[in-house]
């Protein structure tokens, strides 16, 4: 493939916040991400927060206990699945908890809310926070990928260059949630 010339388009360059206002609102309620999201959150619209609000508080409260076990890797594949269908009979919105993805810097776990076939919300339930450095990584790397996950519902961003450690763990947990939904 090296023989072929690079074909591509630089769509834009600059400190452009492509995250939609709805995307910014998603980070509220995820403790370690709050600090990073705060400066921009004031402009967030509420178009989707009404539907995601109950889900996010629900998963947030159950997550905090499991979060501290940390080493619960052996049960990764079984415990999230149990939550996967609870909302499906009463609403179009379904929230599914992804498996715990282990990364070099700690576990990553997300929950995904579907409205029909569209991903409308992604919450980070676990992100690495054992050391100050990890917190910095989490704050910087996870939000853009939350954005990516949301954007991927409309096929806008396929991948991210520059987020070394947490990106794939995040995508892995996200993918497992999508797979569980079937």
């Amino acid at each position: 493939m090296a023989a072929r010339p690079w074909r591509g388009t630089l769509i834009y360059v600059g400190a452009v916040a492509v995250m939609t206002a709805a995307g910014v609102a998603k980070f509220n309620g995820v403790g370690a991400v709050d600090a990073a999201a705060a400066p921009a959150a004031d402009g967030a619209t509420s178009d989707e927060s009404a539907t995601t609000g109950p889900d996010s508080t629900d998963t947030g409260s159950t997550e905090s206990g499991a979060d501290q076990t940390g080493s619960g890797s052996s049960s990764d594949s079984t415990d999230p699945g149990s939550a996967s269908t609870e909302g499906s009979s009463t609403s179009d919105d379904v929230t599914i908890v992804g498996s715990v993805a282990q990364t070099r810097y700690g576990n990553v776990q997300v929950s995904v809310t579907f409205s029909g076939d569209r991903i409308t919300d992604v919450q980070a339930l676990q992100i690495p926070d054992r050391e100050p450095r990890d917190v910095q990584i989490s704050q910087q790397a996870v939000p853009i990928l939350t954005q990516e996950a949301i954007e991927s519902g409309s096929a806008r961003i396929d991948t991210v260059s520059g987020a070394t450690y947490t990106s794939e763990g995040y995508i892995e947990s996200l993918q497992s949630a999508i797979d569980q939904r079937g």
Partner: protein
Amino acid sequence: MRHQQVVMGIPMSVDVPDRDDAAVREAVTMAFASLHAADRRFSRFDPTSEVSRYARGEVLVVSDELREVLALAERAADESGGAFSIRRPDGGLDTDGVVKGWAAQRAVDILVAAGIDQLCCNAGGDVAVVGEPEPGRGWNVAVRDPEDGRRVLALLEVRDGAVATSGTYERGAHVWDGRTGLPAMGLTSATVVANDLVRADILATSVLAMGPDGVSWAAARGAATVIAVRPDGEVLTATAGAVPHLV
């Protein structure tokens, strides 16, 4: 179908849209096997790896792989006036600036040789793509803003190319300027788009080591596009061809 494994302590993924047949899975297995093999050969943390033994002067017959990586490193050092160096300031040998992109590109070549004509490989933030994810659209590769992970610095639509980013924001100042032995501080990130990931990764690391002067330098040495960010947030860009379309 996205396939993901941790290699070199870094998450790596291969995304092959619309296909999950046995041929694809076999090729993906081979591609990851080649990545793990590269990890074993070039690990600085394994005292029995070839690169560790080579650094101690214990390797009599250098493997083709190590010879290739050392040649790439030597060329990069020459081209960058010594800014790119696999010799750490403490005297140790560190081929990481070459190996990740080299190994990932080799994995992509395995996939292409197996007949896969659309894929996206993300090796810990360094990306190589082939074809299109869907007809008429290239792969949309976002480049994260080094100052703020919520922001996207650039969005690149890429077909048959690679995007590598080297930055100080996740792993600290792990890139040093080989000319001075000091941590590279002139830029907080450098992103290079090139034909292949070997070139993109080496150029991105070189630009970070060289600082702002490296931006136009890289555009003259195989980079299709260079996007770099200074510590004060100023964005520097250079292109080898046409002026990019700015939105």
